[in-house]
Every structure is written in C-alpha cells, then in structure tokens.
C-alpha cells in the first residue's frame, strides 16, 4: 500500500498537477514562453498549500483521505484531457533534447554534476538541526492530522517540541505530504520532494532560455548546482532550494511578461499577468518568509524597467493609476494566499515577521545574546559585517561556489554590453536584479538589519540569477 501512496504522490506532483496548472496558464491566454517551468514550480507549492488547507478545514481524517483528496481531482483532469496530456509529456521530452557537440559538452557536464548531486543527496544522512526541526514538525502534522498548534513558543507535544517560527507552513507541509501514509523508513520520498526544487530550478535554466544555443543554459545551470552549499549537503532537506526556485520563477515570469508585452495590451491582459505574479509571489511567501524579498525585488525591478521604458508617460496620471492598480492587485492576491498564516502569526507573535524577537529568553538575556551573536559570528562593526559578512560570498568559494566571484569579473564587460543594447534581454534583467538585490542587502546592513549578514544562506536567494548573468557573458567570450 505504501508503494501505491508513493507512486500516486510522485505522479501527482510531477505530472498531474503540472499539467493542470499548465492548462490554467493556457486558459489565461497571457503570452508566456516558460509556462511548463512555472507549472512545475507552482505544483510543489500548490500541493503543500492544498494539504495544509485540508488539514485546517477537515482535520483528523485518515492518510488515505488526504492523499486521495489532493490527487483525485488532478488525476481525473489528466485522464479527461488525455490527448493534450500526451502532448504535454511529448513537449517535456523535446525540451530536454540538446543539439551540436559544443552544446553536448556543456550538457554532459551539467548532467554529470546532477547525477553526483543526486547520489550525494540520497546517500547523506539528515544531520542539520534546522532540517531535522522541519522533519519533526512534518511528522507531528501527519501524526496529529492537524495544524492548529502552529506556530507556538510553548511545547506542542509531550516531548517538548516548539515551533516558534513566523514562516508559513509551506515547506513543512510539503515534507508532511511527502511522508503522508509512509513509515519512518521511507526517507527517500522526503528527500526527493526537497531535492526536486533544486533540480526544477536547474532544469528550468538549462532548457528554457536560449533555444538555439544551449551552452549558456547548461553552463549557468551547472554553476548553480555546483555551488558547494547546495552540493556539499548543507542544504540537506532545507527550505533554501524551494525558496530559490520560487524566487527564480517570479523573476523569470516578470521577464517573460515584459518581453512579450506589446505595450498596447488591454487592461484585462495586464490584470491577468499581475494576478499570476501575485500567485507566484504568494506561494513563494507560503513556502518561506523570504517570499517578501521576492515580492520587493519583483516590484522594484518591474518599476525600474517598465517605467524607464515608458518614461515619456511618467507624468500621465491614467498610466500611473494603472500601474498602482496592477501592483495593488498582485499584492492583494499574494496576501490572500497567505492570509490564514499571516493571521495566525500575528495572533501568536504580535507581528508579521519575527526571528529572535519571539523568543523570550533572548529578551530576558538581551545584552548577553547580543554580544554572543556578534562574537560567535565574528561580525561586530559595520565594516566587518560588509567585508566578512556580505563579502564572504565572493571569497568563500568553498561555500558559495565560483558564481559570485565570476560575476564580479564579468561585470565591467557586461555593463558595457548592456549600455550598447536598447532592448530588454534576460541578461539585462539578470544584472538589474543582482544589483538590486545587493543594494537591498547593503541597505539593510547599513540600517542595522543583520539578516543577510548573520545568515549567509539568505545570500543564496539570488544565486540562479547570478549564474545566469555569468553564463550570458561567458557565452559571448567562449
């Protein structure tokens, strides 16, 4: 029976749901080039969101109930549209084909690294405290078939487990779904779901961007998966791969929409596009609170690119009003998706986001912990925070890989090329987002928000886009 559960869940997440989401994209009729990638990215989030929603609305049911409830609609949909389903699968296969010998070399390198990643990932034990916390929470969700206890800074079970985070239940929900109906021995399914986010990002980069010349695609994807923090097991069953996926999906969608926008599209067309953006951001926030960063980056880069291109209309009130409406709509959709989680977090913690503030012992021993955190991380003054904190992504190749340092090297050439171009390209968007991200990180550090400094994993959020920018430039000089 467990094998049936496994097969049903795996096919649901990797075939039936993406097909359903793809059909929704087709129905939206927004001109987009990478809908397959968005479908897969959203499926990972959607399954967790559905499972958590069912647990909130109809708790205390059996494993079989939740597995069937989350799979049946999509299975039936798939069967009903079986002809188009065949085309979907065929297209998946075609998108993975590569071309001449040079492309093949890059492709083989990429697939070699992926194989090593998969071997390593399934062979390593889960040792990280954060990962084990998520796993225990997901086990608790499955044993209680309830999520009303989350979040909590007091023990939620007899063993003393606390769940103090302000993150929504997206990632633990995904892990819980992966383990639903299985015994503890089936760790492989849990790892598969977690790893799939990274592979989706990498395959998205490797297959989507330059159909005629895949070298940059595969090179960028290889740089991404070869990042040691990803490769070396420190992201074992961690939420980072999932939030990186959603960040990349939102970025790519924005580029996709702006590239294909004709400028004379109707308001309905733009509304649909921004609804989709809101959904992507909303699910990004649902998986991890860094979705807020994704949202800020999306809106920031949209405003910069779009208003710069339409700067002649900058003082046109109706034009500005339209942008405000679109951004507000997107924001409302995002908030709607995470509304229940937001409400619960505010109810328990009194704020939307809290990292250390919700832990009473940190407040009780405030000065001791402040000193401890600074000394333990070796970051006491502003210059050290910037150089050793933020700067380590360039110097700590053993963790962050070659992507960031390569980015610094290619940046002068890239700026020169971009200034010569007039049209919007993936390369321009990449550089814009990277520079925006680091501006944000620097600003936060200057004003005393130490999130990026104390936790270098947050600097990985921009990793796929850095790798993409590097690949675009290297393609030029290869």
């Amino acid at each position: 029976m467990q094998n049936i559960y496994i097969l049903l869940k795996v096919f649901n997440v990797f075939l039936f749901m993406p097909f359903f989401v793809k059909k929704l994209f087709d129905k939206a009729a927004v001109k987009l080039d990478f809908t397959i990638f968005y479908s897969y990215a959203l499926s990972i989030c959607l399954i967790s969101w559905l499972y958590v929603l069912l647990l909130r609305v109809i708790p205390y049911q059996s494993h079989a109930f939740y597995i069937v409830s989350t799979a049946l609609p999509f299975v039936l949909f798939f069967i009903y549209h079986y002809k188009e389903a065949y085309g979907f699968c065929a297209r998946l296969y075609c998108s993975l084909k590569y071309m001449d010998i040079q492309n093949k070399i890059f492709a083989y390198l990429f697939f070699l690294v992926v194989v090593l990643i998969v071997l390593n990932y399934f062979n390593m034990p889960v040792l990280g405290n954060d990962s084990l916390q998520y796993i225990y929470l997901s086990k608790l969700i499955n044993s209680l078939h309830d999520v009303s206890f989350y979040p909590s800074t007091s023990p939620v079970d007899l063993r003393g487990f606390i769940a103090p985070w302000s993150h929504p239940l997206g990632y633990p929900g995904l892990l819980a779904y992966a383990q639903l109906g299985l015994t503890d021995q089936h760790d492989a399914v849990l790892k598969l779901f977690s790893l799939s986010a990274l592979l989706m990002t990498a395959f998205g980069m490797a297959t989507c961007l330059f159909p005629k010349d895949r070298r940059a695609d595969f090179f960028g994807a290889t740089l991404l998966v070869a990042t040691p923090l990803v490769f070396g097991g420190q992201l074992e069953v961690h939420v980072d791969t999932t939030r990186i996926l959603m960040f990349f999906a939102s970025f790519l969608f924005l580029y996709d929409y702006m590239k294909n926008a004709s400028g004379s599209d109707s308001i309905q067309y733009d509304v649909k596009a921004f609804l989709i953006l809101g959904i992507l951001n909303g699910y990004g926030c649902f998986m991890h609170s860094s979705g807020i960063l994704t949202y800020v980056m999306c809106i920031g880069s949209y405003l910069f690119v779009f208003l710069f291109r339409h700067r002649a209309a900058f003082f046109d009130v109706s034009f500005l009003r339209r942008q405000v409406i679109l951004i507000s709509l997107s924001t409302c959709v995002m908030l709607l998706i995470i509304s229940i989680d937001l409400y619960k977090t505010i109810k328990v913690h009194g704020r939307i986001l809290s990292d250390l503030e919700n832990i009473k012992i940190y407040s009780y021993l405030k000065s001791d912990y402040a000193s401890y955190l600074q000394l333990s991380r070796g970051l006491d003054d502003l210059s050290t925070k910037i150089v050793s904190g933020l700067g380590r992504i360039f110097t700590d190749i053993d963790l962050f890989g070659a992507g960031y340092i390569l980015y610094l090297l290619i940046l002068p050439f890239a700026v020169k090329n971009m200034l010569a171009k007039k049209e919007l390209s993936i390369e321009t968007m990449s550089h814009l987002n990277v520079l925006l991200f680091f501006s944000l990180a620097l600003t936060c550090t200057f004003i005393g928000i130490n999130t990026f400094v104390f936790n270098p994993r947050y600097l990985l959020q921009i990793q796929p886009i850095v790798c993409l920018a590097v690949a675009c430039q290297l393609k030029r000089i290869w």
Partner: protein
Amino acid sequence: MLRILKRILIVAFVFTGIFPKVVNVIPKTFPTRFTSDLSRINASDLAGILCFLNGERYKTALTLRDGEYLNYTKLNIKFVLSDESVSLIKNQKSLENVDIVINNSYNDPFFYKTWLKDVLYNQERSCLVYDDLGYQVFDVKKSFQGAQCTKFAFNASLSDVQDKFNIYATHVKEFPYLTTLPAANGVTFPKLDEGLYDVLLTADCDATKPQKIDFAVLTDGVLHNLSSIKKDTFYLEKGKNKISTRFVHSNIPFRGLFLSKDNVELSNITVKFCKIQNSFSKLFQLYPKTYTGYLVGNTITVSSSFLLENKENTAKQVTLKVSGDGVLATSLIGDGIVESMAVRLSKLLGNALMKRLENSPSYHIVDEEESEVSVQVAPHSKLILSFTLNPAHPGAQFKISSLKIS
C-alpha cells in the same frame, strides 16, 4: 590559442568551486537500505552521541538543539528557546525534572551566563558523562561530591601564531615532537593513575575588548586541523573574566590551547582531575593506549574508539572477528613527519582531497553474522578502530571474538 586559454580559465574557475566537493561526493559507504537514513548516520559525527543517549535510561534533557534528539532518540526535551526556559532561569529548583543537560562546543549564554554554569562547571554538582565531537552530556543527578580529586596549577603563554590565531599553550614538557608548537619547559604534567578523568579547567582571563576564545586539547604527536580538536568557546567581556571548561580525558598528558584573534592575559589556571569510576565501557575515548587485551571477549555497548599502536620497524597485519549491529571504521595515522607533510599538502590541494587520500577511514558494516576485518598497519603507525553502534537499536552491541596481530 587565446580562446583555448580563456576556456581553460573558465573551466578552472568553475572547478575550484566544485572539485573539492566532487571528491567527497562519491559515497564512502552504501546504505544497507536505500530508503533508510539510519545506516548513513552511523558514519556521521552524530552517531556517537545518539548511541549514547539511546543506550542510557535518561528521560528528560535540557538542550541547546532539538532536531537531532527529537528525531533520533526517545528523549523528552526542554528546549532552551521555549517560553518555559525563562522560568527555569529564575527558579533554581527547576532542574529537578531534568536528568541531563546537553551542551555544544559553541556554547550559549543560557549555560555560561546563568546559574547553570555553577552546575555544569562544578564537579560537585554534576558529572560529565559524554564528551566527543562537540557534544557534551552532563548528568545533573550525579556528582563527584566526596570523591578524591587532584588539583594542579598550570601556566600558559603565547606559543605560536597560526591561521590568524594567537595560540596560548599550557606548558607541558612531554611533547618535544610537536612541530607546530615549540617544546616547552616548565610545569610537568601530573602523574595520574590509569583511567579516564572528568577534567575541570578554570582560569582568569583579561581581555582588552569583547572577544571570543576557542579552547582546544592536544594529545600526543598527532597533528590535526586546529578546529577539529576544539573543546569549548568562551565569549569574553572587556576586562577581567573567569572562564571554565570541562572535558573528559585519559591520564596521559595533554596540552591546553587557547586560540584568540587578539592578545589576552591568562592567569591562575587550575585543572582539577576527578577519576571516573567503572567508566571504560561507558565513555567515548580517544588515544589512551593499546587495549588489545580488553577488546577480545568483551562486549562493546557504547560507540567507542580504540587505538592500536605498532612501535616496530615492520608492518603488522591486524585481523579481528567481529559481530554485532553497527559500523566499524578503521583508519591509520602515520608518524609525525608524514602527518606534517599531509597538513602542508592539504592547504594546497584542499582538505577534502587530502582526507580522501590520507587517513581515510574504511567502513565495514557489522551485523549478526560474524565477519573478519583485516588491516595492515605500517611501521611506527597507529590504527584507530571506531565502533559505532546502530542508533536505531537501543541495546545494540559489538562482540569481538578474536584479534590477531601478525
């Protein structure tokens, strides 16, 4: 030509990011069950503490970390980040419901800034029952109160500067072959009866500014990456500080090392040794001496390491027959010259690669069916046998029916 050079440069940059990790990624062992994590944990740093906790009858632990204990043991935990921890700090009687306290080498203000330091760093109020690989377990229901303990005074001064750290070493003259630190004159290490000791080290430390100091223990002529022998971390305020650390060690001499990025003044270093009775089968040991006689015929009930030394000029073949439930890792350590070469090379080639080429442990899965493990030990080398019990099975053990050295 230029294009080829450019391509080589690009590939080289990419591989500096991935090559050291590529070497490590090839699995050292394949799990007996693909879907199970437990056999992989056997080969990890967590195995020892998990085996220990699963083998004992503790019910409740006060701990800095929750994930590993909730998932891999049956302990109930009092997590220091829960709301209840504030009342625990305010009420000194609240440890009545706690059996053990689990600390880590990176330490935490919860333990060193509250009344708990008077329990953990006090041999008359607790026993250190486990100490290895950054994990320490203090049994707060037992103590050395009334036991005969030996107290000595040490001194320490700046001995070396390495890897951006100032290294202050306690002077013990039994280490003339320590090439990273000069041979020291002065205080002689006390003569102790054979066995294991709960060691409490206290010192006064004068710091010119808030800073962090790492404390490490160096034993014998074996050279290590300094971070791998770290025992504790102290977070100092500007001015005078009283530091305390506690660790388990055998009777053989050791050197205490204080690693600091800034200059500090260490004084009044006292070390108190309390002998741990009937401890051999209970605690994790490293490099005490050969225990050939003990190993055969006995049952190993806790993950342990044993050192067998070949002091002769000819190679020896060590063959043992073992059965049980877990993993046996065998690794070899050469003499001082080879070791220091390995350290120098590791800085060039990357520690990961050197770990693969030198002293890489060989893992042998041990099950109910008795199997034979054979290792060749070079002249003047040491063999470490690390027995790691299966953490999934409390009560798992190893039995060695024979051990031959030929």
